[in-house]
């Protein structure tokens, strides 16, 4: 048993403070992203989630220019962009127009990110920063981020849990929810706020561009396995944490792999495990006649 463990886990893994911190913050983020992500998948708003993450790159890079932690920038710009998407898209219930509005905001956000990353690289000599902002590195997270991550995560989780039943109904059938007198628009706006926070957390962990993988990947996988939303949320959280932890382990081990002996990016492994989980769930649900 100990032999097997040693073969899988390279030396120093559990003792490393960097690993412990990464595992803790990564797990927190994975849980928040997965819980919010189940609603994202149910509401068919994966593209909005992707857009908020990408736009977050502008926030992360501008925060670096301003000399504050990138998480603040990610949160601020994701919330602002969520508001913009809501304002542009709300009068048009059609999904096609909603995606259009999202796409337009996304394009502008990426333009801003290009500007801020350029300024950061040229004027402030932050040559390593674009890679970190866009693709993330959970090992580089500062321990001072922990209370922030916990705080924003708690707000996002609280929003989803407090609004659980009405939000579920509005997500599955907007007409039915409206007929029952639920404030569908307000629910949608509050959900977008939770989404913005979850995406910002995911962006700071595995990078702005990859954040959507942690948001919708585990959620979509879980919804392959179970139809009950409460079960799906629990399964998605577990899958998300598993993907992050396995990713951290693989990144650690990759340092010892030939021929480079250099270490591969942790974000690559996280999204790889998310994809493997999704494909596995598809195959499993097809064989058992589910999907």
């Amino acid at each position, binding site marked *: 048993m100990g032999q097997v463990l040693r073969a899988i886990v390279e030396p*120093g893994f559990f003792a*490393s*403070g*960097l*690993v412990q911190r*990464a595992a803790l913050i990564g797990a927190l983020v994975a849980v928040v992203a997965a819980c919010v992500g189940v609603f994202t998948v149910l509401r068919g708003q994966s593209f909005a989630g992707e857009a908020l993450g990408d736009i977050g790159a502008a926030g992360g890079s501008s925060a*670096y220019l301003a000399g504050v932690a*990138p998480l603040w920038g990610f949160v601020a710009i994701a919330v602002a962009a969520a508001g913009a998407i809501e304002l542009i898209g709300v009068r048009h219930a059609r999904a096609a127009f909603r995606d259009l509005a999202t796409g337009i905001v996304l394009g502008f956000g990426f333009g801003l990110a290009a500007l801020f990353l350029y*300024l950061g*690289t*040229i*004027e*402030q*000599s*932050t*040559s*390593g*920063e*674009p*890679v*970190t902002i866009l693709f993330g*590195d959970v*090992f*580089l997270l*500062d321990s001072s981020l922990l209370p922030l991550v916990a705080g924003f995560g708690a707000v996002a989780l609280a929003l989803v849990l407090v609004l659980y039943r009405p939000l579920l109904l509005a997500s599955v059938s907007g007409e039915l929810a409206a007929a029952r007198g639920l404030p569908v628009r307000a629910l949608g706006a509050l959900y977008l706020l939770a989404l913005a926070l979850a995406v910002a957390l995911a962006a700071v962990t595995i990078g702005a561009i990859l954040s959507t993988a942690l948001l919708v990947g585990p959620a979509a996988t879980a919804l392959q396995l179970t139809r009950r939303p409460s079960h799906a949320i629990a399964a998605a959280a577990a899958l998300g944490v598993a993907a992050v932890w396995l990713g951290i382990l693989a*990144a*650690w081990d*990759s*340092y010892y792999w030939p021929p480079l002996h*250099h*270490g591969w*990016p*942790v974000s690559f492994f996280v999204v790889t495990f998310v994809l493997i989980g999704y494909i596995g769930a598809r195959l499993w649900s097809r064989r058992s006649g589910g999907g």
Partner: protein
Amino acid sequence: MKSVSLSFAAAVTALVLTACGGAAASRVGGGRIVAVGAENQYANVISQIGGRYVAVTAIEHSPNADPHSFEASPSIAQTVAAARLIVQNGLGYDTFMDRIESGSASRSRRVIVVQHLLGLPDSTANPHLWYMPRTMPALARELAAELSAIAPAHRAYFAANARRFESSLEPFQRALVRFARRYPHTQVAVTEPLADYLLRAAGAVLATPFALQADVMNGVDPAPQAIAYQNELLARHRVAVLVYNQQVTDTLTASFLAQARSGHVPVVGFYETMPEPGYDYQSWMLAEVNALERAVADHVSTERLR
């Protein structure tokens, strides 16, 4: 932004040089040999050797910008097109110069690539050649020869300047020898390979693995094991000093600086380009070695040179 500040600075450089030269020139160069240094440390040596017969422009001189990520602008292309003598580093450090030069072919232009001057192969991992003590004396002699070929009438003047330059490097070289004698095998942590040549010349031992240094220089995230190793060096006080690149900081290097401070390891900021104003190449190098000595001897940090 960058191009505006660069062309402005180029204009200022030209004005200053014009004023120094005494001749009231109406156009850039004003009859003098137009020369370009890809980085301002090379431009500085050109102007010390060429003296009143050259008009020098530095392409890279911003203390806030990282030359590795520099992009050329049209005004720079104009300056390069007019130049008769160019000094660039090579080793992929200033490839933008090759692009500009190929955009304005000139038969009479002479280009000194410091890498080739020193006979270094392309596989040389550390491009920061101006921190090698043998680099600038070799460049000074080469400059005297090239300038004499362009303006044979001033051969004796250029040769005398080269000799004066070489002897003015002696305080720097003596400081290196003194440091190596007083503090032999000093363990040093670095964030980047920036000052590695100088540190080795000072007899120091580089405790930071080169893979980590290269990752920081190339702007990719190092492996967690490498980061943990560096943090250990600083936290356990296994190094006497942390040398970092004053012009290139990001989340990771900032965390190393914080780690050094909490571990009471003094830090010394080294520069990618020559800090201006107030320094020439010789006094800059001497100031860096003195800062290193203050850190090791008195545990005093020097984050920026004044």
